[in-house]
């Protein structure tokens, strides 16, 4: 199997008529770390709910680990670990008892190995010392980690983490990132959603970007990077002269500022641009090539600020 998650025309319209997910075609390669990005309210969680069989699609199909959803939910989901829209446990039970409760609901889990599995899962997220503490008294970060522990109770082929760093401090965010790396290193496919690109870009191999219910980009992270056009930027007193040189080299979108000129680099070699500038007698104080940051690309795809035309 080469595809962990695939969907075609997956659509969810809420009863109120609002189109939450609009014909998305997901393709999550097995073994990838897939960052599912988009602002809050762009349909990420609704998509995840459909992938887990919690919500029923209005139209379209989805397959998880090669099994159609939601019909195959009960025979396949035990191969999938998940964290959906924040942790949820019984406040009056301890962390260990909470994990035992979920494990008891899994008809494929072996009760004999449960204590060992719980211990290992708790250890993996650093909660072993708080195992006997009631969930009620857990801090936000501990709750989040317990939810991740629950998804690690069984060997999984796919882990779906919905906003795993929500509400975590920078240290906690770093820990989650490290854990995602570690899970991925085991060969598990990780599907992680976030509204912040910066939180996942270090660990992702692939990204999908959602905007108001539609998937506006999907592919390897490197491909997203390539879509950003690099610009050549020259610091010079003779900006107009530099623009002329750019034009002669065929660079597009040339702009002249007070002490600076820039243009889209395109296929031109930066070395040659620099040489031509010097050759033309332009006094070059500084020369650089800058690609837009992923964050800029991401914001460009998802729109800035609130977007409520859904």
């Amino acid at each position, binding site marked *: 199997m080469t595809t962990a998650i695939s969907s075609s025309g997956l659509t969810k319209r809420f009863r109120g008529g609002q189109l939450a997910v609009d014909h998305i075609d997901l393709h999550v390669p097995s073994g990838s770390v897939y960052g599912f990005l988009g602002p809050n309210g762009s349909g990420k969680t609704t998509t995840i709910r459909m992938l887990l069989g919690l919500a029923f699609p209005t139209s379209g199909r989805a397959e998880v680990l090669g099994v159609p959803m939601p019909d195959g939910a009960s025979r396949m989901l035990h191969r999938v670990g998940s964290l959906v829209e924040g942790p949820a446990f019984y406040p009056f039970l301890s962390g260990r008892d909470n994990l035992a409760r979920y494990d008891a609901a899994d008809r494929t889990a072996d009760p004999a190995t449960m204590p060992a599995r719980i211990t290992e899962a708790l250890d*993996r997220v650093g909660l072993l010392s708080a195992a006997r503490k009631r969930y009620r008294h857990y801090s936000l970060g501990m709750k989040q980690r317990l939810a991740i522990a629950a998804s690690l109770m069984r060997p999984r082929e796919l882990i779906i983490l919905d906003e795993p760093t929500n509400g975590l401090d920078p240290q906690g965010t770093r820990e989650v990132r*490290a854990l995602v790396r570690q899970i991925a290193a085991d060969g598990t496919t990780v599907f992680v959603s976030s509204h912040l690109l910066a939180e996942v870009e270090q660990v992702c191999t692939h990204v999908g970007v959602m905007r108001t219910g539609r998937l506006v980009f999907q592919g390897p992270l490197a491909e997203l990077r390539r879509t950003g056009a690099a610009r050549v930027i020259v610091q010079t007193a003779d900006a107009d002269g530099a623009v002329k040189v750019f034009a002669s080299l065929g660079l597009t979108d040339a702009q002249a500022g007070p002490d600076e000129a820039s243009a889209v680099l395109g296929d031109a070699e930066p070395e040659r641009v620099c040489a031509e500038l010097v050759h033309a007698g332009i006094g070059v104080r500084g020369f650089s090539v800058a690609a837009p940051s992923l964050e800029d690309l991401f914001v460009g795809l998802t729109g800035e600020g609130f977007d409520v035309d859904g």
Partner: protein
Amino acid sequence: MSTAERTGDPGGSSPPRGAEGVWGERFPPKSRGGLGGIVPPEITEQGASGGDRSPRGITAWLRLLRAELRLVFLRKRNMLLLAVTVVFPVVIGIALRVAAPHPQGGGNGPGVAFFNQLAGNGVFLAFIALSTLLILVLPVVVAVVAGDSVAGEAGYGTLRYLLAVPAGRTRLLAVKFAVIVLFALCATVIVSAVSLAVGAGLFPVGPVTLLSGSTVPLAEGLLRLLFVTLYVAAAMAALGAIGLAVSTLTEHAIGAIAAIMILVVTSEVVDNVPQLAAIGPYLPTHWWLSFDSILRAPVDTSSLLKGLLSFGVYAVLFGSFAWARFTSADVTS
């Protein structure tokens, strides 16, 4: 849609290796995937093939049932409810012992008849307690557990995780209903047992004089009490099915519990309006107190059977509604 083209590189770019940060450092690379070592691979494979081979399937059912029972019965709030069913018979017994019952008429319900008998036989405290608690206390006990069953999980958000485990919607609902029925049975048995003990301690015990006037040996009286208890438990199980259905409609357990109680009280009130006598037999609470016919000789089986039929119909009707709703609704909590 401007979805970028997929590259022919599925999973080709391997995820970044090497863990940094606190958790990463805790685990040397060789221990990774250790979880896989604990669970024998055949379990995963068996599950993957969707095989629910019967012995294993039944074990898994029992395991979920046990976990559910532990969750419900060990919960402080529910233990408090059961404590209430212990306290009430004790209080009623002491009150009746201290202030001797007034046998004069004024009503003709089974309760009044029971009061007249109590002075002569402590066994009747069980019937008094059951018919008294059946008006409000037992329905509250059942309503709390049934109303909380699905709505409570939805409220905590644990429902989505149970379904993602996956517990299976039908399986989870069936186990929930089984626990409601067992809890109702438990509460009813506690009322009977405690009031029997209290009655034996405070009043004379001997051959039981039935409501119809004839006297039966104590053993037969106790057997009849057992049937009364089971009948009341059946009535509460039917209420539990109604409660389960209500519980699938909301994620606010309190709302579900209140709705069930409003339903019970409304039914009881309507049942007591003479002008509405025509619809009386179809109300969910109408047959609850019909157990008094077990205490007559000969036993009037027709009203008992009608009662059991009513409970059965209500259980099937609302159980089906709960199933249809629960297996088709989006879980949005």
